[in-house]
């Protein structure tokens, strides 16, 4: 084997310029996959982080059927106190769960006594919300110095566009008017304690009030929870936790259902497009490797017909000739991918060093590209396998040559 490798590598460097050109092309493909993959994964991770850590949480639990009519914010699809307690019990028993936050979501009218607009409200317990969507506070500009109390009973955090639209300022008093599930209308005055920049873009109209205020506004004796946002200790556990929760809510007597952030956020389709783009880039790489190796190996076989005849004549079995050419193609792939990986990782390191900052809609994104080791390994394995595959036909041709014909080749 050692000798076969030696011959394969020496044959590669027999035509230095050609080998260098081909391996540069393959290495360029590898660099493309690594750098693009690093940037795309970093972008996706950042965006998902912003969405899950400032609004949605990693998972959400609702009453069955709620998500289908989520745009209407129905108040009748809520978890009763006992149902919420049962869900809470399940969450407490799961070691993967870091925190959870119950919410009452509803639509209301906001009035500054002169003008009125509509608002979508999340009524929360601030201390639980802050543990669940840890970056929410960072998006709120408020008058409270204490980060733990960004919202108190009697206060509201208003979305930025409503603040501007209604000409409101922090400290102003406004009135919230809402219809409860029985159809009766009620209103309460609240003070603006902060302004929030929406992660959902300039059209976002999401405000926050304390859960006790929502209960008063909606005339609830006991909190009827619409939504429970869940944060996991490790985001990578999302799939497993989702399946576990799904199984425990699957029974007929359970009234809850679970959804991942992907099922609730429109960004999930952007994330899927990013994944698709990474796959497309990998296909480009496969095409580059396939064409380059096939081309160089075919040339190599046709240039060395007499040599193949010689080695066959002096006793090299056809299988060994096949291995020799396969190894040559494989070595080409290995050397190119090693070079590509080094350059690609170098570029990623440089990008991390310089940092790329930009705004994506309302979100500040600071790209710190990084590529998981598994992605690098998958890229290397793809190149190596495609190199072997591309070498097979020329290698097979070489192995099938009749020595007498090959020796007579000029």
């Amino acid at each position: 084997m050692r000798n076969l490798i030696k011959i394969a590598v020496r044959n590669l460097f027999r035509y230095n310029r050609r080998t260098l050109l081909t391996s540069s092309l393959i290495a360029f493909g590898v660099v493309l996959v690594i750098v693009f993959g690093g940037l795309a994964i970093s972008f996706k991770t950042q965006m998902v982080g912003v969405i899950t850590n400032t609004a949605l949480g990693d998972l959400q639990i609702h009453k069955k059927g709620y998500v289908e009519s989520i745009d209407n914010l129905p108040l009748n699809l809520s978890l009763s106190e006992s149902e919420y307690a049962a869900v809470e019990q399940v969450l407490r028993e799961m070691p993967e769960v870091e925190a959870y936050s119950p919410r009452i979501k509803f639509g209301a009218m906001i009035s500054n006594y002169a003008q009125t607009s509509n608002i979508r409200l999340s009524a929360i317990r601030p201390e639980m919300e802050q543990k669940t969507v840890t970056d929410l506070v960072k998006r709120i500009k408020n008058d409270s110095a204490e980060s733990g109390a960004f919202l108190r009973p009697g206060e509201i955090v208003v979305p930025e566009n409503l603040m501007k639209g209604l000409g409101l300022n922090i400290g102003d008093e406004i009135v919230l008017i809402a219809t409860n599930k029985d159809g009766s209308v009620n209103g309460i005055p609240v003070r603006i304690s902060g302004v929030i920049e929406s992660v959902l873009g300039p059209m976002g109209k999401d405000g926050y009030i304390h859960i006790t205020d929502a209960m008063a506004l909606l005339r609830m004796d006991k909190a009827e929870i619409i939504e429970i946002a869940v944060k996991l200790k490790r985001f990578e556990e999302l799939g497993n936790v989702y399946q576990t929760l799904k199984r425990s809510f699957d029974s007929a007597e359970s009234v809850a259902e679970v959804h991942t952030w992907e099922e609730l956020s429109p960004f999930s389709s952007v994330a899927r497009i990013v994944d698709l783009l990474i796959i497309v880039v990998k296909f480009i790489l496969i095409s580059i490797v396939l064409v380059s190796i096939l081309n160089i190996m075919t040339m190599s076989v046709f240039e060395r017909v007499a040599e193949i005849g010689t080695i066959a004549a002096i006793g090299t079995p056809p299988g060994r000739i096949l291995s020799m050419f396969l190894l040559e193609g494989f070595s080409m792939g290995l050397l190119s991918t090693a070079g590509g990986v080094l350059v690609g990782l170098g570029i990623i390191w440089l990008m991390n060093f310089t940092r790329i900052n930009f705004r994506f809609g309302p979100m500040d994104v600071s790209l710190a590209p990084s590529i998981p080791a598994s992605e690098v390994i998958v890229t290397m394995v793809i190149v190596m396998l495609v190199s072997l595959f591309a070498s097979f036909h020329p290698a097979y041709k070489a192995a099938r040559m009749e020595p007498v014909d090959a020796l007579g080749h000029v």
Partner: protein
Amino acid sequence: MSLIHLQEVTKTYNTAGVPVAALKNLSLSIERQTFVSFIGPSGSGKSTLLNLIGTLDKPTGGKVLVDGVDVATLNRSDAAAFRGNTIGFVFQNFNLIPVLNVYENVEYPLLMLKHVPVKERRERILNLLDKVGMLDQKDKYPNQISGGQKQRVAVARALVTNPKIVLADEPTANLDHATAFKVISIMHEMQKTFGTTFVFSTHDPKIVGEAELIYTLEDGFIINNGRKEQNRSTR
């Protein structure tokens, strides 16, 4: 039993749909440890005959027995193994592997035979390189040595597996006279030292005189054969 036995062998090629007979009902036997030459003009069938003996090709008719084996019965892999163990080749164009140095070129056939231990392999190679006068050039690559030196390396490569037969197709065609004689004398010496049967083809009458047994071919037939002395007298 003869080492090489050909019985009514014919070989016909199809050239653009036209059958061309290269060998016609050819029969001959070659004994062990002889130094045999085939002489004849271009197209007389010398190379075809050597290809058949070397199991590189199969006859259209008749039987070719080499060391008791009917070459027509061997498949590709068996033929390769048979060649590796029984036959050494020396080619007109030397056919050394350009990416291997002199030592590695001689070593190559041994690597195809798995049972040769490293130490023995090394001894055999160095001994042969010494015998063909190429020991001091063992680290050079084929493009760094002369034609005569290349052919000496080729002779060493052909002998390294201790084959029963060495087939040399026009081994001196690309060499000047002095070098050609040197190569032939090395082959002769090797034949005496190792008891190998040497079969070579040539169209050079001066070189052919070095053979013990000479066959003259013309249009696929043997038109003359005999021992060296006999042959010289008929010339």
